[in-house]
């Protein structure tokens, strides 16, 4: 330990440079030089995309978190890449179709979605040409909204088809029940289709008729609710652009200044430690009286402490 302290003390200026000045300089340089430009857009999520009806989110996830998760899952799909390419076509981004194809293929994996609050979603896209970055990000938002709308339409279409089948069945049952009542009335003149009838057969037929009508009304109600829900989700599920696409800067290393400074500091301390180890291995100067005596095989008569006053000589 004494030797290590001695080495550090004898080259303290170098260690100050390595452990203090270099990290400070690199951190300062990192805050200006080691940064990348990126386009970012702020999106407002009214509701979670998977929420059945407006407002409420599932579990503990906020609408923004749910939307960010959905975006992260949608972005790598080929359908999104195709939608992005089409949106870029419409926005005339890039010189020609082949460039747009390349841009769309290269851009898709680079989008990053993150929540910045309960409803705010930040979508970023790192690149070096500001105009292209902003345009591609705008096209990405449009493509995502299209994809989301398509997903919603598909989902609602499936439900509607299912409910339509139920309505048809219910209507068929109703027609059969009406026919059965009409046939029974024709065969038994004097009987009227009423729930107050004393004829048990008539009473049964009237009951079946009422149940069939109730089933038809119920399915029709579900279909109406579906229409309302579809309209509501179309309005709430779409991401609204709150902060238009614009350019910003971000650190190359890590997510922020402190993290980056910590990484630089650790790297510089490791460098200083490596330098110390090298010094330790290479240093062969006489420091320890016992080591000197052992290696020289000559008795050590005395050690004389450092005598700074002797400098005047």
């Amino acid at each position, binding site marked *: *330990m*004494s030797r290590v*302290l*001695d080495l550090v*003390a*004898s080259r303290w200026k170098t260690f100050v440079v390595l452990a203090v000045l270099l990290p400070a300089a690199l951190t300062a340089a990192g805050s200006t030089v080691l940064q990348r430009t990126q386009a970012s857009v702020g999106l407002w999520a009214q509701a979670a995309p998977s929420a059945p009806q407006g407002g409420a989110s599932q579990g503990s996830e906020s609408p923004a978190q749910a939307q960010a998760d959905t975006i992260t899952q949608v972005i790598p799909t080929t359908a999104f890449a195709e939608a992005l390419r089409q949106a870029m076509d419409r926005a005339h981004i890039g010189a020609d179709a082949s460039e747009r194809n390349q841009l769309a293929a290269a851009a898709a994996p680079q989008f990053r979605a993150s929540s910045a609050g309960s409803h705010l979603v930040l979508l970023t896209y790192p690149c070096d040409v500001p105009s292209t970055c902003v345009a591609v990000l705008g096209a990405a938002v449009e493509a995502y909204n299209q994809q989301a709308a398509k997903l919603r339409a598909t989902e609602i279409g499936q439900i509607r088809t299912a409910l339509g089948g139920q309505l048809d069945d219910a209507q068929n049952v109703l027609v059969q029940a009406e026919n059965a009542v009409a046939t029974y009335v024709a065969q038994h003149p004097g009987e009227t289709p009423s729930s107050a009838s004393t004829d048990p057969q008539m009473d049964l037929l009237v009951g079946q008729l009422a149940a069939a009508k109730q089933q038809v009304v119920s399915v029709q109600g579900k279909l109406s609710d579906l229409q309302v829900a579809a309209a509501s989700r179309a309005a709430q599920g779409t991401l609204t652009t709150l902060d238009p696409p614009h350019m910003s800067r971000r650190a190359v290393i890590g997510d922020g200044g402190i993290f980056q400074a910590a990484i630089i500091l650790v790297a510089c301390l490791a460098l200083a430690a490596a330098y110390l180890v090298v010094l330790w291995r290479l240093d*062969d*100067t*006489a*420091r320890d*009286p016992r*080591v*000197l*005596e052992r*290696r*020289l*095989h*000559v*008795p*050590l*008569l*005395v*050690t*004389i*402490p*450092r*005598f700074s*006053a*002797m400098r*005047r*000589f």
Partner: protein
Amino acid sequence: MEKERIQRLNADIPTSLEAALRPPQRIPGFAPRRVERVEVTPLPGWFVDRCRRIYMSIPGGGDHSRTIGITSTLAGEGKTSIALGMATALASDTREPTLLLECDLERSSLARICGCAPSPGLREWVETESPLRIVKSSVDHLFIIPAGTPPSDPARLTWELAQSNLVASLAAQFRNTVIDLPALISSSSGSLAARLADQLVLVVRSATTPVNEVERAVELIGRERFAGAVLNAHSPRHLPWSRPPQLY
């Protein structure tokens, strides 16, 4: 030719010593002869005490005079300061005539330390056969012979010095002779000058001198010639909560 010159040098030694140690009596009616005397800057007591431990650790002395050479591996390791400290301690303790002879002709610094004129010195005595200058210091019983101005060929002068009877003649007059020798590795005349002393003390500067160089110097001269080593400018560091290392 060279032999004759060395013989002349040897013949001059008693006269020089006589003049330095026993100045002529004052002649009535004439001004007293001026004896050169220098004020040596007082060394700190702890430093002289450390140097005292060096000579006390070296066997010898008694009825015989002793000649101790202070040398080092490289230049600038502090041998002149230690030689001065040791000579001061010897002169003060034994109260016997003690001489500090500076033989480091390449890097002479004793005159600067003592505040006396650097020349004439040993070099001038060897080269020009001028009288040997022996300076009395402010420390009782301590005399100094400075090296003089640096020569262009120190190795040749050192060889001539070794051929002369100077050290033996000095030893006859001074009970203690401390010789400030050149560095063994970095000086061309180091190993030659080392022959002048009976016993050698090797000064090693802490955290500066590579141990393998010190080993080389010891092997060059011969381990048996060394009375011991001194670790100079030693400042062992320790953590605040740990026990400070012991000094030798």
